C-alpha cells in the first residue's frame, strides 16, 4: 500500500521513527542519576527502568519489578553494592544502554535473551567485563551474527555461553565448534552439532524433512476442485499447490 499512497508511506516512516525514538529513550545515559547517587545505584535503577532484574553481590535475592511494573527502592540504601547478575531478557537494551552498566566490574552473569536490539556492536562492547563475566546468554537475538560472536574472545573468564536460535548465524554447528576452540574453558550450549547439516538416511537418500529445503523445482498452482494438467513437454518434478 505504501507504494501507491504517499500518506501511507508517511505514516510508516513516522511509526518507524517513533519506535526508534522509544529505543533511544530507553537507552539514554543516566548521567544525572550517576552524579547524584553513584554509578552502582544508577546501574541498578537503569536495569529496573528497562524492565529487567538484577542481584547485588552481597545479597542473594533478585530485585525486579512486579507484574504491575512497581519495584521497591531499597537499593537506594546500599550505594556501595555492585551488581553481580543481571537479567535483561526481552528488553529494549542496545549498545548505547551499556554505558550505564559498564561501571559494574563485578558482573558475573548477563542474560540478554530475546532482545531485539542486541546486535554485534553490543557484543563488541562486552570486552569491559573480560575479567569478571562467567555466564552469558545471547540466545534468540535476531541481530547477532558471527562477526559479533568473535568479539566474545575477550571474555576469558566465560564458562557458560548460550547461543541457541540465533537467526543471523547460518551454520550454528560450525560456529559452535569454532567458539569452543576460541574459548576452550567455556561450555557452549544451544547449537547442536548436527544443526544446519543436510541429513542422509541409511540408503544415502535425502531424508524427508530436508528434501524441501535442499531442492528447488518449479511450482504448478491449480484451481481447487480440478486435476492438475501439464502439457506433454513438461517433465520432471513439480510442486503442486492447490489454490484455495
Amino acid at each position: 500500500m505504501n507504494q501507491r499512497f504517499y500518506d501511507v508511506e508517511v505514516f510508516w516512516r513516522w511509526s518507524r521513527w517513533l519506535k526508534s525514538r522509544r529505543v533511544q529513550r530507553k537507552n539514554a545515559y543516566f548521567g544525572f542519576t550517576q552524579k547524584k547517587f553513584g554509578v552502582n545505584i544508577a546501574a541498578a535503577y537503569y536495569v529496573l527502568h528497562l524492565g529487567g532484574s538484577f542481584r547485588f553481590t552481597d545479597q542473594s535475592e533478585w530485585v525486579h519489578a512486579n507484574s504491575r511494573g512497581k519495584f521497591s527502592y531499597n537499593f537506594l540504601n546500599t550505594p556501595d553494592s555492585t551488581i553481580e547478575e543481571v537479567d535483561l531478557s526481552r528488553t529494549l537494551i542496545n549498545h548505547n544502554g551499556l554505558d550505564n552498566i559498564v561501571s559494574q566490574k563485578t558482573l558475573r552473569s548477563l542474560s540478554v535473551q530475546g532482545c531485539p536490539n542486541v546486535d554485534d556492536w553490543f557484543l563488541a562492547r562486552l570486552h569491559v567485563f573480560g575479567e569478571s563475566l562467567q555466564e552469558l546468554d545471547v540466545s534468540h537475538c535476531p541481530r547477532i551474527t558471527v562477526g559479533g560472536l568473535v568479539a566474545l574472545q575477550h571474555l576469558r573468564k566465560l564458562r557458560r555461553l548460550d547461543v541457541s536460535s540465533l537467526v543471523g548465524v547460518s551454520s550454528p554447528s560450525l560456529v559452535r565448534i569454532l567458539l569452543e576452540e576460541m574459548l576452550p574453558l567455556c561450555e557452549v550450549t544451544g547449537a547442536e552439532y548436527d544443526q544446519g547439516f543436510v541429513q542422509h538416511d541409511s540408503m544415502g537418500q535425502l531424508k524427508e524433512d530436508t528434501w524441501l529445503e535442499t531442492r528447488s523445482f518449479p511450482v504448478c498452482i491449480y484451481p481447487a476442485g480440478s486435476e492438475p494438467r501439464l502439457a506433454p513437454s513438461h517433465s520432471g518434478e513439480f510442486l503442486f499447490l492447490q489454490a484455495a
Partner: protein
Amino acid sequence: MPGTDWSPVELRRDLPPDRADIVVVGGGVIGWSVAYWLKKKERVRDGVRVLVVEKDPTYSEASTVLSAGGIRQQFSLKENIQLSLASVDFMRNINEHLWVLNEDPIDLQFNHSGYLFLASESVAHIMEENYVTQREHGAKVTLLSPAQLKERFPWLNTDGFGFWGLENEGWFDPWSLLNAFRRKAMSMGVFHCHGEVTGFTCTTSSRETEDGDVLRIKRIKYIDVKMPDSREYQPVECAIVINAAGVNSGKIADMIGIGSGSEHSMAGFSLPVEPRKRYVYVVHCPDGPGLESPFLIDYSGVYFRREGLGGNYITGNSPEETEEPDISDLKVDHEFFQEKVWPHLSHRVPAFESLKVTGAWAGFYDYNTFDQNAIIGLHPRISNMFLATGFSGHGLQHSPAVGCAVAELVLDGGFRTIDLSAFDFKRILQQEPILERNIV
C-alpha cells in the same frame, strides 16, 4: 529549455542533465558518501542538485570494491583517528542513516576482531607514542607484552609488543557500504550518470600578488561528460566540482591544467595522486588461527586476516618504493607472494607453512606520493573544485566521515565536526608533508 529540464525532443535518456549545482566526479564510496551528505545537509527540499559521474558501472577497477575492507583507529595522526571513530559511529547506526523504505536493512557483515599491530624493538617507541595519541582521542586500544601475546595467541611467533584494538576495529564488506550509500543517495534525488569526464570549460581571472606575480585563477563553468562507447558528450553547467575520482584524480586535475606551469610557480604543482597496485592473496590453511584471529599487521608490512569460517585467510604485503608493480592492468604476480609474503607470514605464524593459495586479486591504492595522506579541500588555483582523494589505502574506512566533512566544506563554508584543515592542498605547495607513520 532555459530554467527547466524539459525539452521538446528527448534525444537520449541517459545523458546527464544540462545543469547541476554540484558535480561529483567518481562514483566510488567517497563520491557517493559526499553525494549522500550533500543531500542530507541541504535545508530546503531539492536545494542542491547533485550529479555523480561514474566511468565504469561494473566497478571492475575501482579501489572501493577491491579493498580488503578493514577499519582501524590505530593511526598516528589525530585527524585520521577522529575520522575512523566518526566513520565507525556512522556504521554502528547505519540503518538509521541509510535506510530506504521497502528495501532490506543493510548488513555490513562487520567482523569485530580488531587489528593487531606487532612492533619490533626498533619501532616500539614510535608505536607507543601513537598508542598514547590514540587513547587520548578515544580509541580503545590495548598494549600487550610479549608474554601476554603468547598467552592470548598461541599460534603467533613473536618477541615484540602488540597493539590490539579492542572495540570498533575489524573488517566489513565494502560493496554493501557502497550500495547502501548509492541507494540512499538516489532515493534522496541525486542524479547519476555513467560517463567519463573528458574536459572542462573554464573562465580565468587574474590577480596580482604582493610580489607583483600574476596569479591566474580558473573557475570551472562546464564539465564535459562523454557517454560510454560513443562520441556523444554533454557539457554540464555546474557551480562546484568535487574530485573524488580515486586513482584517476591526477588525470582529472591534469585536464584542468593543474601542474602545467613552470616548476617554480604555483601552477607547477600537480596533484600528486597516482595509482599503485597492491596484491591480495586468498589462502587456505586448515590448521590456521581460528575465530579469534585479528587483522594482524607485522612490522615487515605483511598482513593477514580471516575470511569466512572455512579456514580461509586474506594476506598481502606492501612492496618497497623502488619495486612498485606495473599499473597498466590488474594482473596478479604470484612470484611476489612466494618471495615477499610467504616467508614473513610463515615466520610469524608457523601454521602457515602449509597453506595453499586458492585465489588472488589486485587493486589500486589512490596513492598520495607526497605524504600518503588524504588531500581534502579547495585547490588554490581553481576556485570551485574540491578535492577528496589521495587516501592511500584508507579511503574506504574514512568514507562516511570524509563525505560529511566535504559536505560541510561545500555547504557550510568550513569544517564543523572534524577539523581536517591539516589535509589541505597548501601543504603540498609549502612542501610540508604530514606523515602518517602507521601505513599498511
